[in-house]
């Protein structure tokens, strides 16, 4: 068996110093070498300046989370050390720029290396801004990455800019390499693993994966209003969709965006919008309309910390309640959530497919960590994707009088005529209506149609492929999770197994309708279930409890957390290992721990 290589590098500095682009560049380099890479960043709330952090983890095995602790920490300045110092694992390597940072004392580092980035950039490159590329050179050299390959990347990134800029950056890169060669003992460098031949892969961010999934599923009309961390979905599509005959319109607000989606869907297109909590909150009235009209559409919600404006650049899973329960009345809808970047792609395809099949709005809950994480994934075989389209009137319906837009069919799904294509004019209305789409305000009419809409969605709970289990299925400790905590939760199962604690994981990609059947099966035999969620009230746990009431008694212990940062595997594992009352299962006495905050 090939040796497991797993390394996490964190870079801290000031926003605007190029921390992010240095990190991205190095990560891309490692990905090209064949490693699996996963990145993690925190942006300052300021546009320019403020503390920025970029972390990337790479491995020759699967990379499921951003990494709990950094093996290497590179601090551009004092604040970076103050804020990020805690993240270095005991014995790890600390590098700092002596021009901007006091030599750190009292550190857990195994070794401390002063790295004169500013000095090299200023004196030798002649441009202090290039210090991030010097840093890239240092990282490349350390990791034994061929200098040529790295130089290629620099050329790709800056090739279209002014020649001086490219030259300066190439020089900075070379000086970074040179510095390592001249000053650092070769034995201290990381020895990169041999990477075996691997399936074709691509590297992309969660938002890119979601957008690409949309394109593959047939998305053709996109309307959106900028908001962090969703804007790049629209920006990506603005560039790419026209090539496919699709259209992107930046609207005046989110209400215009979603109502334009409603119009486009009525007009026959696969339509979507993307936003974050504040924008999605504004959309719920129209979301109800889409449910009532039974129109397919997809709302991407890249969740950030709420409530209200909250922490716009930080992650959270606080929009589940809104997605499931937002808007007045009982509204049909489907809520999905991808667990990782690969899931971002496939879940987007699912979102459009389910929207079409069930003629319903689908809300796709991603979060800031996933949205802006870049990760290597297997290159999707897009030819093999099944793409679904909405049910249309059968060819023998030619008379508008006999056409039933909201036909009460056995599967509760009705045929939808498309203007311009079907000679079956009808008027879709948000008022309660009958099978003909005519207004019907009778007790029977409203009851029957409310049933129809609800049952249609219940059926979606039986679609296969929206849950996944991991670990020892006979374990008595269960972990149920959704969204980006899935990666660290899976690693937590392994960590627990390593310390002799048996646990199993259920990952749920469809949050609404609730996957009652699979969840009950999973809970069967459990003594306790833990639900790690990045929100304050355990929104998914509460949904589960409501839907499982009377069907099971397995205690559901909520692990709710709103730090704005993603979970670490260690954190979940510790919580499980120290669950009070389950010493028989964990073999450990629970510790009383003060909340810790690290960032």
């Amino acid at each position, binding site marked *: 068996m090939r040796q497991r290589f797993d390394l996490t590098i964190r870079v801290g500095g000031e926003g605007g110093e190029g921390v992010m682009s240095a990190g991205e560049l190095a990560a891309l380099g490692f990905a*090209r070498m064949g490693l699996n890479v996963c990145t993690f960043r925190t942006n300052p709330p300021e546009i320019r300046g403020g503390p920025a952090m970029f972390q990337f983890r790479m491995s020759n095995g699967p990379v499921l989370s951003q990494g709990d602790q950094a093996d290497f920490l590179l601090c551009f300045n004092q604040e970076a050390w103050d804020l990020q110092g805690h993240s270095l694992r005991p014995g790890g390597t600390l590098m700092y720029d002596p021009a901007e940072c006091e030599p750190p004392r009292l550190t857990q580092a195994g070794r401390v290396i002063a790295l004169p980035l500013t000095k090299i950039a200023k004196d030798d490159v002649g441009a202090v801004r290039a210090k991030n590329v010097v840093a890239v050179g240092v990282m490349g050299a350390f990791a034994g990455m061929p200098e040529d390959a790295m130089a290629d990347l620099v050329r790709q990134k800056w090739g279209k800019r002014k020649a001086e800029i490219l030259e300066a950056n190439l020089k900075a890169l070379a000086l970074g390499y040179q510095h390592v060669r001249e000053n650092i003992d070769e034995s201290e460098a990381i020895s990169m693993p041999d990477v075996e031949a691997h399936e*074709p*892969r*691509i*590297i*992309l961010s969660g938002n*890119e994966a979601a957008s*690409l999934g949309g*394109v593959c599923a047939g998305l*053709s*009309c996109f*309307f959106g209003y900028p908001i962090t961390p969703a804007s790049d979905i629209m920006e990506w599509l603005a560039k*790419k969709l*026209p*090539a*496919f*005959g699709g*259209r992107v*319109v930046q*609207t*005046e*607000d989110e*209400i*215009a*965006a979603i*109502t*334009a*989606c*409603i*119009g*486009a*869907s*009525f*007009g*026959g*297109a696969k*339509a979507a919008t993307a936003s974050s909590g504040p924008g999605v909150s504004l959309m719920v*009235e*129209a979301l109800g*309309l889409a449910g009532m009209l039974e129109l397919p559409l997809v709302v991407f919600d890249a969740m950030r910390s709420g409530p209200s404006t909250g922490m716009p650049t930080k992650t959270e899973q606080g929009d589940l309640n809104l997605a499931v329960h937002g808007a007045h009345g009982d509204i049909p809808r489907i809520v999905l959530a991808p667990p990782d970047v690969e899931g971002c792609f496939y879940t987007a395809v699912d979102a459009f497919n389910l929207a079409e099949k069930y003629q319903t709005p689908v809300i796709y809950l991603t979060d800031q960590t996933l949205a802006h994480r870049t990760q290597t994934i297997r*290159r999707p075989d*897009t*030819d093999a994707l099944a793409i679904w389209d909405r049910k249309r009137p059968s060819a023998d319906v030619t008379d*508008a*009088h006999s056409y039933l837009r909201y036909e009460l069919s056995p599967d509760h799904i009705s045929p939808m*005529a498309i*203007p*311009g*294509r079907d*000679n*079956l*004019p*009808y*008027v*879709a*209305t*948000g*008022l309660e209506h009958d099978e003909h789409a*005519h*207004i019907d305000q009778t007790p029977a009419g409203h009851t029957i149609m409310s049933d129809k809409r609800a049952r249609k969605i219940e059926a979606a709970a039986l679609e296969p492929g929206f849950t996944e289990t991991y670990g020892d299925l006979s374990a008595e400790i269960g972990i149920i999770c959704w969204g980006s905590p899935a990666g660290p939760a899976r690693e937590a199962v392994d960590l627990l197994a390593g310390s002799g604690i048996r646990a199993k994981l259920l990952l749920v990609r469809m949050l609404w309708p609730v996957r009652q059947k699979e969840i009950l099966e999973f809970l069967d035999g459990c003594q306790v279930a833990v639900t790690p969620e990045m929100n304050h009230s355990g929104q998914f746990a509460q949904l589960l409890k409501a839907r499982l009431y009377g069907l099971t008694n397995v205690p559901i212990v909520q692990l709710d957390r709103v730090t704005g940062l993603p979970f670490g595997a260690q954190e979940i594992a510790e919580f499980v290992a120290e669950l009070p009352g389950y010493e028989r299962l964990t073999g450990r006495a629970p510790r009383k721990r003060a909340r810790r905050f690290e960032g």
Partner: protein
Amino acid sequence: METLEIQRTVKDYRSEVKPTWCAGCGDFAVLNALYKALVTLNVDPKDVVLVSGIGCSGRLPEFVNTFGLHVVHGRALPTAMGVKTANPELTVIAVGGDGDGFAIGGGHVPHVVRRNVDITYIVMDNQVYGLTKGQPSPTTPSGMAAVSASTSLPKMAPWGVVETPLNIMAMVLTYGAAFAARGFSGKPNELSELYVKALRHKGFSFVQAMSPCVTFYDTYHTWKEVVAPLPATHDPADRFAAIQTAMTEDVFHTGVFVDIPRPTLGDLTDAIAAHTRAESRESGIRAIMDGMM
């Protein structure tokens, strides 16, 4: 838009649903004028989408035998833009009230205008909220003028309307509408002709249809007195003169205020698409993924 095979009649555009409006409501004339305009254009009902928000006026699509989309209050315009974006071949007409369009929906108007989305927007302006039983709207005259002529307005404004009304024609002109006209329910033929012009205009077209609410603010007789055609000298290519007229008139001028075509959103995005089009879906997707390696 026009097909030559058959000549349709009003019967082809009238739906089975009997209008639910109060007897005498101005909206009947708006509807009849629309039937007539559709007959003139002879457009296939399956190629027309009428979009409306909520209000008495918003019920109109139900009464027309074309596709219709009766959405939430205030959102007819962005919805109509969505329909047109999905299928530029369709004739898309948004209709609604003064409240729907210029109170809750007022934020959308400037943007659909500046994009020059190729749709027609008919506002049935009765200067009151009809459906919710007669509160003041953005166009209700201020003071006691309207209040004392209404049984319902005194509920919200017992001491008179304290807000200055909006001049929606001047606003739409200032936003840069490529086509803007005003008609009156009391002059249904002219109204119908204005619709035809608006529908033939490529780009955003606006028709303010003065359409009295006989139940809550009956202005039929007063308006009949103050309606007059735009002076023959009015030049629809002169936006600025049109604004001046709209802002200073002491009568309601009817006719075409401006008709100044410019490229539509569709024209411009089509040009982009032509420029960037992938050879095939598959090759396009492949190219994207190749760039991610």
